[in-house]
């Protein structure tokens, strides 16, 4: 199963290496990882998505990460109500005659054009990973020249209400 883990760390050289090294040693498979500064100086936050077989393994992962001296806090936020975002840059073959058509696909995803060439257009899409997956699937037939994704970053929502199926569309 997929788990979303956030790790608050002291921003010291080598700390990313410590965390990923530990995941490697304990044989965890990282799907994505993002790191960046937080509101507190000297403190960074990592968000990663890992695949694990069972609850026990994830408990072990959280405990092992917590043991690292540079790690201040580890949270498995998968089962909480969370905001989760990823950014993707997608370069698409879009000759002028097809552009309108492609734009009509991009529009509902609230993507934006950030670069344009003679025959290619680069779009930026922001959202949860499923939304980006859906966009990629729709746009694939037009020919993706290049694609890059940042990996997700996530937050626990202020109000911890379990999202209803309807609300989850709004994410």
């Amino acid at each position, binding site marked *: 199963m997929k788990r979303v883990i956030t790790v608050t760390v002291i921003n010291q050289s*080598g700390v990313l*290496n*410590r965390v990923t090294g530990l995941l490697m040693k304990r044989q965890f498979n990282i799907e994505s990882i993002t790191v960046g500064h937080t509101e507190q100086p000297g403190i960074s936050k990592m968000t990663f998505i890992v695949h694990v077989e069972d609850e026990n393994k994830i408990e*072990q992962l959280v405990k092992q990460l917590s043991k690292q001296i540079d790690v201040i806090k580890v949270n498995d936020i998968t089962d909480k109500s969370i905001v989760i975002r990823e950014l993707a840059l997608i370069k698409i073959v879009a000759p002028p005659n097809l552009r309108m058509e492609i734009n009509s696909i991009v529009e509902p995803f609230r993507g934006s054009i950030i670069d344009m060439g003679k025959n290619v257009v680069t779009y930026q899409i922001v959202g949860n990973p499923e939304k980006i997956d859906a966009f990629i699937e729709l746009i694939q037939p037009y020919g993706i020249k290049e694609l890059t994704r940042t990996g997700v970053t996530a937050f626990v929502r202020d109000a911890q209400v379990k999202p209803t199926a309807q609300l989850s569309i709004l994410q």
Partner: protein
Amino acid sequence: MMNAQVPVKSRESAPEEAKQEIKKQQNGAALFIESLKKQNVEIIFGYPGGAVLPLYDALYKDPIKHILARHEQGAIHAAEGYARVSGKAGVVIATSGPGATNLVTGITDAMMDSLPLVVFTGQVATTVVGTDAFQEADIVGITQPITKHNYQVKNINDIPRIVKEAFHIASTGRKGPVLVDIPKDIANTIFESEVDDNAPIDLPGYQPTLHPNFLQIQKAVKAIGEAKQPLILAGAGILAADASVELTEFAEKHNIPVTNTLLGLGSINGEHELFLGMAGMHGTFTSNMAISNCDLLINIGARFDDRLTGDLSKFAQKAKIIHIDIDPAEIGKNVPTDIPIVADAKEALKALLKQEIETPDTLLWHEYLAECLAEFPLWYDAKEPDTVYPQQAVELINRITNGEAIVTTDVGQHQMWTAQYYKFKTDHNWVTSGGLGTMGFGFPAAIGAQFAKPDQRVISIVGDAGFQMTSQELALLKEFNLPVKIVILNNSCLGMVRQWQETFYEERYSSSLMPVQPDFVKLAEAYGVKGYRINTIHEAEDILTEALLSDEPVLIDCRVKQLEVVNPMVAPGKGLDEMIGVKKG
């Protein structure tokens, strides 16, 4: 914290102004040595080289004792032995590159067995770090997964803080090795600004839990009150927490039998009537049956290592499990736990001792265990009348030293026989490489142990193969006249490898026999150490008595039965209740 080290000013004679004058002229190396003194370091095991020349120059005039090993691996195993028996952090210095990489085995060994070490390595100058300079190795990268924490000093002002933190991290919580990498130019930099030495340690990510949660203790009390077949499994956590008195009191108070892990030996007197012997792969039949049949297993400071548990799906299936450990990550890692208690073993036992527990009648359980002990004791068959059987040798050593010596071993058959037949009377006397299983550990560890306890008898029981991995340290016995006693249980082979080949590979002894061995007596004599040889059982007692009771360093080449195997055994992948090599006594 138990090992909190109070900084002590050692030079009190210099007036305040003069002191500051001295400080202004200090380089990083001198500042480093001063920081070590604040941690009350009395002994360093090390080996110099280019990148640590400034550190060694600063040591030259200093009263801290430095022991020059003959190989970095010898130095770090000595520091481990020192740490194991003294409870204090062992300190090691090695140079950059090969000096540092030669420490890797010892660091891993200390990590696996939770021994407090602070390891200082030299590094090439910061100006050339990352350029593959002469004797450069990325030791911080290399040791990251095998240390509790590691540092590279990037600024001279950080030296006092990093040294302080390193000792704190190494010797608190679940103890372990910490490495500090010091680039040469930083050691050479003249230190100018003042440093606040009394700044408290600020490690927001490191707050070990020492005191048990009261609710969890209540749950444990209830479980103990209901158990008809309780058992205590005591591990090295008891020794690290210095809780052997509390353990014994707790076991006696509630009349609960005790078994040990390999590393936990000595946490209760080996002759205690509640003690069942070691558990696990080569544990006693009784201990393993006790684990298999108990209805409550109280694990205190053991990590359910695979050599202890055997097949996990068959481990303690009838038992409710209480697991007391200072490291939360150990709880539930291998064995699902019913009542987890994160705490220092001593604190947890103290909390349990405060509780009044009405325990049910466990007479039947004790009768069953007594029957197991009587019917299936440890055994060996000394068929050949003249041959020394290794078990006999260990029994003799136990008798001659009355179970009171510090004993160190490597890994393998001799280690298991020592664990089975040496009955440790007290704690902190057993020094062995458990988790990593390092050959060549025992002898240098004995050197470190002897430095820590100069007045105690230290015996290193080693195999002929393992001894040859670090035998160069014989030079230290002569140099410091250390009365370490080396007993080589010499079977001219890699005993445990051979045993497995005999049992699981149809006696194909691939690269495990050593037909050519040095003359160990002459080897000892070459280093100026007295050597003895034992060929038959008839002379064993006299020679061992003379050699072990002497005040000098000695080496005893004890020729033992080559094809002897360690019994009984839980074959790999089997459950504890499926022991082979069990015999009716």
